[in-house]
């Protein structure tokens, strides 16, 4: 049983680790931390493997663990620093170290605009638009109703477009 468990986790890692890593990176913007939390996500998946009943897909389950792992980590930080992350004051906009992660220039503007959005908006955009989860899967990961996912997404997209305009990445007539 243990070997089977290890094998499944290894397979899941091969399939989803990149996606989990980028999801965490998009949430916290710290590449080293994103690696550590990806590691922790798969260890938690291994430890909680027996509780996985297959009601959702392994990918949805792993994303749910990744989200909780990241939130748990952030909660342990002091409130002010957490708030700073939300409001993104004086954030370092320098390039991410190439040895860990590379973000193509074509996406950097959107990546930066996303990090300026508030958490609830960012969560939904990442899961629905970047990761292409369905509304139902997104609701499962975020532990909320499907209607909340829909309404939040309806507010989040204009907020992102507004952010892009504000930063001069988008012209009004191009929206």
């Amino acid at each position, binding site marked *: 049983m*243990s070997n089977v468990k290890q094998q499944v*986790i290894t397979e899941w890692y*091969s399939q989803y680790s990149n996606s989990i890593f980028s999801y965490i990176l998009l949430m916290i913007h710290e590449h080293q931390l994103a690696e550590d939390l990806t590691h922790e996500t*798969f260890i938690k998946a*291994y430890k909680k493997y027996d509780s996985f009943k297959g009601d959702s897909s392994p990918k949805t389950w792993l994303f749910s663990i990744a989200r909780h792992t990241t939130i748990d980590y952030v909660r342990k930080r002091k409130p002010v620093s*957490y708030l700073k992350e939300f409001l993104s004051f004086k954030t370092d906009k320098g390039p991410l170290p190439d040895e*860990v992660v590379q973000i*193509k220039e074509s996406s950097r503007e959107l990546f930066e605009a996303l990090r300026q959005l508030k958490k609830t908006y960012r969560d939904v955009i990442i899961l629905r*638009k970047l990761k292409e989860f369905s509304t139902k899967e997104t609701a499962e990961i975020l532990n909320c109703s499907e209607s909340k996912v829909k309404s939040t997404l309806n507010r989040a997209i204009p907020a992102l477009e507004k952010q892009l305009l504000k930063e001069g990445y988008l012209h009004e007539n191009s929206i």
Partner: protein
Amino acid sequence: MKTQFDERLKQIDDDIQWNKQRNQKVKNEIIAEIEKHERKPSILKHTLIYSSSLIAFAIFAFLIVVNITPINESQRPSDEEITNPILDEDVMEEENEWIESDNELDIEDGVKMTEDRSTWTEEEMLNDLSAGIILTHRQLTKFVEGEWVPDYHSAEDQQIISDLFSYVSRAGTAAFHLSADNYLYVDLMNLNSVLGEAFQNQDDDGLLLAYQVVHDLDVAYNGFEEDKGPFGVTLYRDATYDVVRTYLGRQ
């Protein structure tokens, strides 16, 4: 149907590339940790068998010695009890330290509003924004959990009410100055109005609504709780916004 903007968003995910070597390194670490974890139970099992054999042998030897040695009549259990008082004191001290440290955490966790606002720096505004939400949430949680039953008239409750207004107003002003988030500013202003209405009408339902709003703000901006609450799933803004407007007679 996918728009061009949707395609651009999807592209971000493809454009974030995690270094393959780093990915492999993390994979190796995970496998090593899993193997270590799996080895633990068998090591533990062997250790348990070994130590229980030792204990059994020790008990057996002790029983033999007791049977052989004549009992000293003058020795009483009460004498044995005081043979090592220092150990007992140590344990007591340790327990007290635990209790003290628990109390310290309860009473002082560093969440407070800025006292001197003559130079209200960005750092202090950020603090007041966060602390205002936390302190209001704490007080209203006491109300929801029955620890605080406001009578709306006593000097003590008047002070609490005044403090709540002060927390929310200052958090709102900070949000305004920081240009943090228009929704946040509006929510804080609405929260202040709901509190005002509730206190004026001595309305517990209004306080409950104020709690719901500040609970959502605490989840959204301070992230201290699961995205759930006593109301089931917290529907940040979407659930409370219309209710708040109705309560304030704006709809």
